[in-house]
Structure formats: C-alpha cells, structure tokens
C-alpha cells in the first residue's frame, strides 16, 4: 500500500512537472528559424546558428569576492572565426573546445538520424536549443528545469545529385544563412528576459559551471523529426498525461 502511494506520488510529481513544463515553455521566449540546406551543409549551418546564440548567452567565469559574495568579477570570453567548408560563410564561436564538443556531438547525432529519414531526397527535422534555469524544489521533488528561451531550428535537408548543383547551393546558402544570423542577433538583442545574475550559491542553477574557461547559461539540445511543428506546442501530451493520471486513480481505488 505504501508502495502504491509512493508510486502514485511519483506520477503526480511527473505530471505536475510536465504540466508546468508545458506552461513554462509556452511562456518562454521561443524563436523559430527555418533553413533549407543540402545534406552536407546541415551540420555547419546548425553549428553557425547555435554558436551565434551561445556567444551571446555565454559569459566569462565568475569570481566572487571572498568576503562580499554580492561582488564578483567576470573573466573574458575568447572567440574564434570559423570558415565553413561546405558553405560560403564564416561564423564566430566561443573559444572553448569543451563547449564546442558538447553541441557538436548533439548536432552530429541529429544529422545522422536526419539522413536516415530521407524520403524522395528530402527530410525534415527540428533541433532545439533550450536555455533553462533550475528551481529548487522540496524533497522528494527534484529541481525543476524552467526554460526561458527556446530556439527551434527547422531543418529541411535535400539531397543534390551533381557537384555543380552543390556548388551553386554553396554560394546561395551562405548568403541566406547570413540573413538568418542577422535575424538571430536582432532577436537576441531584444533583452526580453534574461535571468538575473545569481549569488554564488545559486550559480549552478543559472549557469553551466562544468566548463573551466567559459560560463554559458544552462542549456540543452534535443531534436525530433518529421513535419510535426515545433516542440512547445505539445498540447496532446497534456491530455494524455491527464488520462493516465485518471487511470492510476481508478486502479488505486479499485485495489
């Protein structure tokens, strides 16, 4: 009995988190970027956009004053110019190999899975870069992750047969990607919402402190495939959670 109550409590917790998550995602600043690229250009195009966003969402390492914790100094963020190989485009990224490897790994996985879902030389998928902050919860609840900014990159990948077509696309896609970067920078600069600078104790709730050289905001990357729209419009999931909870209630009461 106690075990069943515990399981019930867990379900409620997850449902509550999911509902909260849906609400907070709907309240979060969401930006959608659509790109149409050739297969070999997917990785670099997504990297260019993600690095541009992360550059604006990364600060130097905080060094708090030992005596006065409200005061802190900030390190500086280095930058690298990266020339794309399959695109006539250059983007700027944070000079941090660890950070680059973190997002590159996710993007490569996305590209590989996107290639497997090709249908008639065309495939679609959405990769999302989500910035969130953690909120402390009381036991037994875990800290909840509250997104405050969501970037959805809807990628339409097409496969070109000839090299001449790829060369043409190389030039045109570079200029289009430049326009996307301009839009991204303009959106980032709106300062709609940015978490407040935390105290030293709350620093891990806002920033990713595992990196040694830079300090980006907490973020995560996930993706899905197909033309199902963007991830924050998941109203069907809320109804399915509600029906599941009702089933649990019925099953518990019948016992």
């Amino acid at each position, binding site marked *: 009995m106690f075990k069943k109550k515990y399981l019930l409590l867990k379900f409620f917790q997850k449902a509550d988190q999911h509902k909260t998550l849906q609400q907070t995602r709907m309240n979060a600043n969401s930006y959608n970027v659509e790109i149409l690229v050739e297969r070999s250009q997917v990785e670099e195009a997504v990297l260019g956009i993600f690095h541009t966003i992360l550059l604006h969402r990364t600060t130097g390492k905080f060094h708090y004053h030992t005596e006065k914790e409200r005061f802190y*100094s*900030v390190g500086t963020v280095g930058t*690298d*110019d990266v020339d794309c190989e399959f695109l006539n485009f250059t983007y700027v990224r944070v000079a941090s190999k660890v950070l680059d490897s973190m997002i590159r790994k996710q993007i490569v996985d996305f590209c590989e899975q996107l290639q497997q879902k090709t249908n008639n030389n065309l495939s679609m998928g959405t990769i999302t870069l989500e910035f969130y902050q953690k909120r402390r919860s009381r036991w037994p609840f875990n800290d909840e992750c509250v997104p405050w900014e969501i970037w959805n990159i809807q990628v339409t990948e097409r496969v070109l047969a000839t090299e001449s077509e790829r060369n043409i696309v190389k030039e045109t896609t570079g200029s289009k990607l430049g326009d996307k970067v301009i839009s991204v*920078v303009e959106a980032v600069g709106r300062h709609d919402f940015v978490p407040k*600078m935390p105290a030293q104790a709350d620093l891990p709730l806002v920033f990713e402190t595992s990196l040694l*050289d830079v300090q980006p905001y907490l973020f995560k990357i996930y993706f899905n495939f197909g033309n199902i729209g963007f991830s924050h419009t998941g109203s069907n999931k809320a109804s399915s959670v509600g029906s599941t909870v009702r089933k649990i209630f019925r099953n518990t009461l019948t016992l």
Partner: protein
Amino acid sequence: MSSDISSPEERKEFVKYLKLLCLKSTQLIVQGRLGKTISTESIVSQKNAMINLTVKDYPEIEKEARAAIRDGIPNKERSYVIEISLRTSDADSLVLEVWSIGLTNKCENKRDHETMHYPMSHLLKSLLCLSRVTPAYKLSRKQGNEYVICYRVYMGEINLSGLGEGFKVLRVGSAGTHWGTITMSAAYRTTENLHVSTKGISPKVGIPFVVKTDHFSSGPRPHVSSPARPCHTLQSRLRTFSDASDGMQPSTESSSPPYNVFNTAFSVSPAGNFIEKDGNKVMFTVGTPPGGNPRCSVSSPALARMQRLNITEKNNFHSSNNGERSHTDFYKAHWSPDKSQFNTGASAPNSGFTGHLNSRRDFADLKKDRRVSFPSTNFLKEPLSNNRKPLKVVKPNEQVISGTTFWHWDATSTSTVSPKPVPHISPQFVSNSEVEKKSNSPVSSPLVCTPPGLMTGAFVLGCKTAQRAKETLEAAEISSLPFRDLLKPIHGNESPDDESSQSSTSLESDEKSNKDRFAEGRRKSSDSSSSLSLTGSTGTLNNENLQKHPDDFVLVDLKPAFARDDSIKDLGTFYRECENVPELIMFENHGGSETDETLHDLTKQLEDYEKDMHDFDQFVSELCA
C-alpha cells in the same frame, strides 16, 4: 537626457564605458577586415575587465580611435563613425561599409540589476557576429595585390553618400541608459551593387608618362578627421604572415604600398551614368600611386589632365599601348569617390578612344557641369573651358601655327573601305615636325577611301608603322593580281623545242632532242626533287607548262601554317612530288638520262619473249603433265 537622476560618478562611468565601446568596436571591425581569421583566448581571471569579451588592441587602430574621440563622446548631433572602404593601387576608393555609434535622446528604462558591463559586452558580441556577415568581409578575405581594405574613423555626421544606391542598413543593437540610448548600426553596400574583379594581366612596372605631383587634387573632404588608412598594408601583411603571433606592426603612414600595374574592372550601382544597361564595364589601367598621397579624392578636370599629359609628352598618343592608357587617365579624372560614380562619360566611338568605354552620355549634358568641364564630341570645333593652355588641333588644309598639338582620332573624317583604286593616303593628323616640313605645301585631300581591309588607325600617324603601311599599299596598287610578276608573258621567241616536242611521232627520231631537252630541263630546274613528267612523246619543262597555262596557280613557295618554313622538306617536298607524276623507279637508277635506252630494251625484250614463246609453252605443258 535625465542627467539629474544619476550622480556624477555614474555619468563618469557612462562616459568611460561609451568611450570603451567606441575603441573596442573600432578594433573589432578593423581586425575583421585584416583578411584572415581572428582567434582570441578566453581569460578566466581577467582583472579589471570592463567587458567580458577578449579583444586584442592594435596600437595603430587604438591611436586612430582615440584621436577620433578626443573631443568627446557621441551625442545626438554627432556619431562615432567607422568607414570601411576598398582602395585599388591607383588610389581609387570605394566605400563599402559605414558603422556608426550614436546616442539618442530616448532614455530607456535601465534595468536596475544590470550595469553597463552587460549591455556593452552584448553589443560588442553582436558587432563581432555581424561583421562577418557583410559582403565587405568576404572582400577583405580576398584582398591582396589588387586592392586593400582601408578604414577611416571620425566623429561627426554619418556620410552615406559613398555607398551609392541600394545599400542596406543593419541594426547591430542598442543599450538603454539614463543619458540616452546607445545605438549601433551599419550601412553596407550589397553584393548586387558591388563587384570587384581583376584581370590576369602581367603587371607592368613604371609609368611611361610623367604624372605631376598635383595629379590628384588635395581638396578638403567633408567630415574627415584622418585619411583612409589600409587595414593591412602589404609590408605588414608579409611580416605578419611570417610571424606566429598576430601582431600588426604600426605601419608607416607616409608611404603607400608598392602596387603593381594591372587592369581592374569595376561595376558600380546602376546610378553610375556611364554604365550601360548591358553591364559593360570600365577598364582601368592601374599604376603606381604618385607621391604617396593617401587621399583618395580625384576631382581634377579631365581636360586639365589631358593638357598636362599632352603638353609634357606629346608622343604618348602614338603607340597603341599609351593610347589605351590615355583614356583610362581620362576616366580617372572623372572618378568621384564621393559619389562613387563617374561625373562624366565619353562617347567612345565618336571620340576615337579605343577600349572598353561604352558610355553614351551626351557631352551636352556634361558641359553643364562646370566643375568638370569636358570637350564636346568634336574636338576640332569647340574650345576647351577651364583650360590653362588652349589645345589646338590640326585640321586638314590648315597649317600649324603654334601651341600644342593634340592628336586624336576624328571618326567623322574616315569612310568605309573601298576595294577599287586606292588614292594616295593622306594623313589626317600631323605632328609638329611634319607640319614644319610641309608648312608650305598644303595638306592633301582628306582620306576618301582606304585599301581593302585596312584603315588608318588612331595614334599611328608619323611613325614607322604608318610609313610601312603606306609603302605596302602603294606597292599593292601596282598589281591587282597577286604573284602576277612571277608569271612571264608568252612570247614568240621561245625555244624551238616547244614546236618540235608536240609533233614528234616516234621516240627514236626525237631521242636526241629529248635528251638535250631533259638535260636542259635538269639544269634549269632549281629543285632537285622535281620530277620530269613523261607526257606523250616528250618531257616538258615546268616553265613550258607555265607558259602554256599562264592562268594556272604557280606554287612559288609553300609555307604551311604552324610548320617550319622549309620548303625543301616535309610538306613542300610532298606537294612537289605529288604535283607531277612520280618518276618510275627504273628510271631513278639511271638518273632519268637513259630512259630511251630502257624503253628500247623493253621493246627488245618483248620481241625476244615472243620468239621463245613456243618453247615456254612446251615447258609449261611438260610441267603440268
């Protein structure tokens, strides 16, 4: 500006941050135009860092930026402007981008938790990202010997006139403060309105004509606090490439980089009146910039330039190479960097300038522009305005009195080519020396027609080429048919052998005469490989053939294309061998001198075979049995 709300310390901090923003922005933009990728390292513990972005400070750029903000920070009346331009080796420039930092009156609500640190850093990061997106960045990556990217920093009004039409405006970002909103924006020339290409012509060193020190006027330019400086000179580029670190040496400001001469084609926006709709381009010939003058303004009248060039070097227009250069200088005089377009244009066919200039703008419109005066289409008629010395053109039937002679091509006096009798070609234009010699004799009639396929070209008068052409034409007039002088007329006093050779009926009776004839033909024949044809009862000489067929084609000397000019061997030999019936091998052994004997032997052999025919038949029947 609500300065009453804030304290003086906050105001001081604001000024400090704004100046820092201007300095760091200049560093980021100019470094992004060096032509290579930039990398900086993240510094974990940076003491007293006012912004959380690592920016290297180049001393030269720092100096220029500090000079621009010496008089104060940007305000609503003036902005901090960074102008990026492209400059070719002949000091012609094209404005590519104009980045500006301004302060508006609008005071946004400053977030309490934010210091100046965060918005300034954010602005610089946005600037860094967007500086790689504009077309000028791609151009800067390709800069080299053909052109360099220059920058100019000043405080004042933003001047976008150099961008031409169709430029785009880019909003980098803004930061709200109590004293106004700091805005950062950029205006850049789009790729549709910008195209720089270079021709792969081997560079030429030196200028064949004298260029005076005042070749480019040093007139004042608006809102200029310092001349445009190259982001990366050639010298410093070479040094930097050899160094591991990214250190830019403070470049010398006086000397301009040593550019080579080459041809550069520009095509600017359609607002340039000299550009035709079909996209014909104007060609420049780029030379070493004179006097190390870093200023890019060119506003001297074309006429004054032409005068200077013509008065000092009157022979410059003779050669075809200089002819092409002259009209490029002519166009350089009209190049207005302020407007990024030509102020005037030239009607190329009428004015006789060869090359690629295809503007069809009327001179009537150009004459209205007093600042750049330009002669009309007909140089012969109208005097030149704003000239220091009058140009004088020699007309036909006119004697040269004094002054400078200016040669140019007057298309109105030429006509189409006529294949029929060519009159004496009279030069339309004369030089001073020739005119002095012929001062008493009137100039001959104007050119009416020219030999087929030949027109007297521009800038050809008075030189050897024209003389040679004249002589060739006169020689060609003599004979209307080619190689006619090689064909001798048929006379009655030819050798009596001709008459006897045709009437001979038997070989034996004419054996002697044929022998003599052959021997004579051999001696007369200059080609040892030529064959004697056996035609009927006689061997005829080549000359006899020519005489009997005077209208036939005579091969004098065969010079095949793309082959050695050696008529003795190869194709010439083959042609001669095939021209006549080849000599029989049986006659080659004897050198052809005993042909009659051989023929007699053959006949005798046949007679002998006929006698023994019965015996041969018996022998064959015995074998078959």
